[in-house]
């Protein structure tokens, strides 16, 4: 319990520090000015979301292999946290795009693929609500999670190819726009901070799932007596 509080405190402190660095340590970008500072938040959330989904994928694989319920708890926790981070990405993107391009959505390759990613994992979470029996739910959602995750690189690749056929405004610079050296430190610190936050949220969600399971067992015991 103390470890969780410590992790939470670390996550909050690091997030504040990362925001400070994004505004006061990183140099101002030449063309976009202060607007570019959204980049540190937007991209670090995107990376953390993908990490969450990747860990969830491992949880799904482990569940199918070993059938331990803790892998199911890990899977759903990672999926939910991943969806949360992806939601932030999908909201911060358009907030950047409107002042930069005058429009909220440009069907930019990365944002569009992120939207599909978001839909896939929302479907994962919806699927879980539609299966009552816990073991069946764990197995079927783990299998769908596996299918969804292996689709992700194909989605990103196909949509990026599609966009090269029909060029359009790109959100936050094209794939080849590098980071100025002064920005790199801030950026990777932001990535680190977001990952600690991700880790904290996954731990909290996992504990909730474990508690739910314990309560269910207690409930069954109470009904039996």
């Amino acid at each position: 319990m103390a470890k969780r509080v410590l992790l939470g405190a670390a996550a909050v402190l690091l997030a504040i520090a990362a925001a400070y660095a994004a505004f006061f340590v990183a140099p101002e970008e030449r063309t976009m000015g202060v607007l570019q500072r959204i980049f540190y938040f937007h991209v670090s959330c995107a990376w953390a979301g993908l990490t969450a989904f990747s860990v969830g994928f491992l949880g799904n694989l482990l569940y199918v292999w070993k059938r331990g319920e803790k892998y199911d708890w890990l899977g759903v926790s990672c999926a939910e946290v991943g969806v949360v981070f992806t939601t932030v990405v999908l909201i911060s993107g358009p907030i950047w795009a409107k002042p930069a391009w005058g429009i909220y959505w440009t069907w930019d390759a990365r944002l569009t693929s992120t939207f599909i990613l978001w839909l896939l994992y929302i479907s994962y979470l919806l699927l879980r609500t539609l299966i009552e029996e816990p073991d069946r739910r764990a197995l079927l959602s783990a299998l769908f999670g596996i299918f969804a995750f292996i689709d992700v690189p194909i989605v990103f690749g196909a949509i990026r190819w599609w966009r090269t056929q029909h060029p359009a405004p790109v959100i936050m610079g094209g794939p080849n726009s590098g980071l100025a050296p002064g920005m790199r430190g801030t950026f990777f610190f932001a990535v680190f901070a977001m990952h600690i936050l991700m880790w904290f949220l996954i731990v909290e969600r996992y504990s909730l799932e474990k508690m739910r399971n314990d309560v269910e067992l207690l409930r069954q015991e109470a009904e039996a007596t």
Partner: protein
Amino acid sequence: MGLLSNAAALLGKEVRTEFRSRELLSTTIVFVLIVVVLFSFTFDPTTNESHRFGPGLLWLAFLFAASLMLQPCFLREQANDTLSALRLAVSDPFAIFLAKIAANTLFLFMTELLMLPVFAAFFNVSFRGQLPGILLTFFLGSLGISVAGTALAAISAQARMRELLLPLLLLPLLAPILVASTEVTVSLMAPEPFMQWKGIGFLAVFDVVFLTALWLFGEYLLEE
């Protein structure tokens, strides 16, 4: 080989069952027709612009039709618990999937072939000389839709709200198929037609990846 001969036998069963009543094929074809006609009301299908939008709408119609057509795939096995019988009959559960995927690919492919002249007439496009390319695209696209769709049909058959769940799970997953198939088809219907091999590549990659995934994990989809 046990796997292939089992799959072939099961495929025969699937095809015979369907051709006895032809209900799946006929309803699917009519559905695609309806969707294409309705889409045409949303813009003028005869101008050159429709060459850009037409193929995308056609593939969307195929995707919607498939997500409906794939519902009975495992649901019809639930009625008399024929799935248990199938599982006992074959040594490798992947044979069941192979058979269903082959059957679904065949039905989808037939639907698409039947729709092709209709589409050409409605949208005033010609495929002269591009037929091999179109057939390849239709085949690889149908295969991808069937592989993912059959796997997800096995999942949704065991959940509630399965009629809505299958499209919900399937359509985002099939985004690469939609994107790649549409791009290739658009290029084949352009005034100066050409073959987009990169798009074909994406379709092939999708098909291989998901077939492999189903081979690895299919038996768990059919677990009791």
